[in-house]
């Protein structure tokens, strides 16, 4: 093995906590919520809409306008230290009246805690939420995927484009409930569009800036690129 490790030991800050065990006999609802929930309610008051404990996991539903502030506090505060972002995803229910939920899964490695933060997006309004990329670099691709699959725009994300489907994909946002399983177009049409898109036959504008081709581009294009425009829709 290599030399002495400098580990970030979990549990170090929470003196007196017993070592973690496999949860057994967890009730459907009820149970002790994560201490973070109480701390959040204390600090942010009305921005915390509700706290649920389902199957032992604490879910905190918050106001979307203050999401970044809340997540940043969870990351920076010495008694919370949620240093690890596990996942960002969205849930659309089959019932068209229920709002779309955007879900963040956060872990505190020093305190060995897990919390789920949710923001509800009402239907009919544009699907927008703040990006947590300024706090967690790991949110980069995860938020891009959420945008690709649901069409939720993450404000503040440095580079929000499609990641799993090709950038000019026309059929829509696949994980929405109004998107049929087999897609909207016929198979032949899907194949035709895929063959036409051909993303690796060309470099994106962003990639072209760094090659010598930049000098050869027309002046107007160079200005657009310098202004930060990217290809893809």
């Amino acid at each position: 093995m290599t030399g002495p490790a400098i580990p970030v030991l979990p549990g170090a800050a929470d003196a007196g906590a017993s070592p973690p065990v496999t949860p057994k006999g967890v009730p459907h609802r009820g149970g002790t919520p994560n201490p973070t929930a109480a701390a959040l309610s204390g600090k942010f008051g009305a921005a915390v809409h509700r706290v649920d404990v389902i199957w032992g996991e604490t879910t905190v539903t918050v106001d979307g306008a203050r999401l970044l502030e809340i997540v940043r506090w969870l990351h920076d505060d010495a008694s919370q230290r949620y240093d690890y972002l596990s996942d960002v995803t969205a849930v659309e229910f089959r019932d068209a009246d229920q709002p779309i939920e955007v879900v963040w899964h956060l872990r505190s490695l020093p305190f060995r805690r897990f919390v789920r933060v949710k923001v509800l997006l009402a239907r009919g309004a544009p699907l927008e939420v703040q990006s947590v990329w300024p706090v967690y670099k790991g949110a980069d691709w995860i938020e891009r995927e959420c945008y690709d699959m649901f069409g939720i725009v993450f404000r503040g994300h440095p580079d929000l484009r499609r990641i799993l489907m090709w950038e000019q994909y026309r059929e829509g946002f696949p994980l929405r409930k109004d998107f049929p399983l087999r897609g909207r177009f016929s198979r032949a049409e899907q194949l035709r569009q895929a063959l036409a898109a051909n993303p690796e036959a060309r470099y994106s504008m962003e990639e072209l800036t760094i090659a010598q081709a930049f000098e050869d581009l027309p002046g107007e294009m160079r200005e657009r690129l310098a202004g930060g425009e990217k290809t893809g829709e």
Partner: protein
Amino acid sequence: MATKRTIEMAVGSAGLDAQGRPRRAPVTVTEGGAVSTLEAPPSLEPDLEGEHMLINIGPQHPATHGVLRLVLELDGETVVRCIPHIGYLHCGFEKIGEYRQYNQIIPWTDREDYLNSIGNNVAFALGAERLFGVEITPRCTVLRVMAMELSRIISHLVWLGTTCIDIGAFTPFLWSFQERENVYNLLESWVGARLTTSATRVGGMAADIPDGWTEQLRHFVKTFPRTIDEVDRMLTRNAIWVGRTVGLGALNATEAVNYGLSGPMVRASGVAFDVRKDFPYLDYETYDFDVPVGSSGDVYDRFLVRLEELRQSTRILAQTLDRLPEGPVNCADHRVVLPPKHSAMSDMESMIHHFKQVMEGPRPPIGEAYVAVESPKGEKGYYMVSDGTAKPVRWRIRPPSFVNLSAIPKMVEGHLLSDVIAINASIDIVMGEIDR
């Protein structure tokens, strides 16, 4: 008399000179195997003035471990920027999950991280059981630990074989695939399939282990460490291996956690985060095993961490063999597990349970659950949301390789082109999981 050879190698992330290029320091390697670094020499003269080159690796490429496309901006041989493109294996897993009953989703979990099939089966079953609120039997718990550790071994063996090929060593590929055949024999006699096992069901397993299986496993546990030792002897202090892997792609502990890295990637950077220890499941807190933690987070440390994890998995397997209890493998809750045929034919309640499960599938209460396990790649989680029907409203796969790969532009900057291949191999990616 120990002979000395001096080789040049890039030294760590602190070894970037004023131009941002990796500093090359002469390293002395003696025959006995001790490695020592001397002070860094003055920085090299800068490259001749020239434009940067734009090259494309993939999506079809032997060394990208699947269909990954990397666009690299090169200044000579040095990478200035890397832009990865994924999605070439996106197959709509999460969408299909909304159209399948919970037991029908299990074959899909095989195919996303196909190197860790049975591990994914177990992870999904744990999530579904949390959502349904059923407890599994003690025998099933131990069998699932065996499944997970066997899965960890075969996944790390593929990583080992393919990484060695990428860096240039062909023989360990054959050794690791030969050992995988031994595990495949075990899996095949248990569930009938080598790779795509579909071994678990909600509330239990597809089948109990056959007679003589534990003897086979005991034999494997006894003979497998010899292969690990052989690989260790061949690679760990090999000058070529060390020269090609030390100092590459290093990330420090804070960066690693902030990027959301998990598994051997984050442990090699010095963070002792293992889901089995910190958020245990399947009674892992009762097993005696260590979690190897590295220090510099470079490719060499990741290699050492994974090699040691192979040994630790064998250790856990030996303990499971001693504690496997008798008893049923499926739980007795017939809303979830099919009742035995003789009761389904004789009493009304069992017949109704059987009918409802076969026609509709088991239905969980309204709610949601997220269960994460330590897969060989990192924190693998399944998030399921139920609205009371037999098919989930949302099935989300938290893919460790996806998040691990997102750090590649940071890891690869300043390294040479051949180092890109080594760093990519060290992340241990599976495109099936990344693209889903």
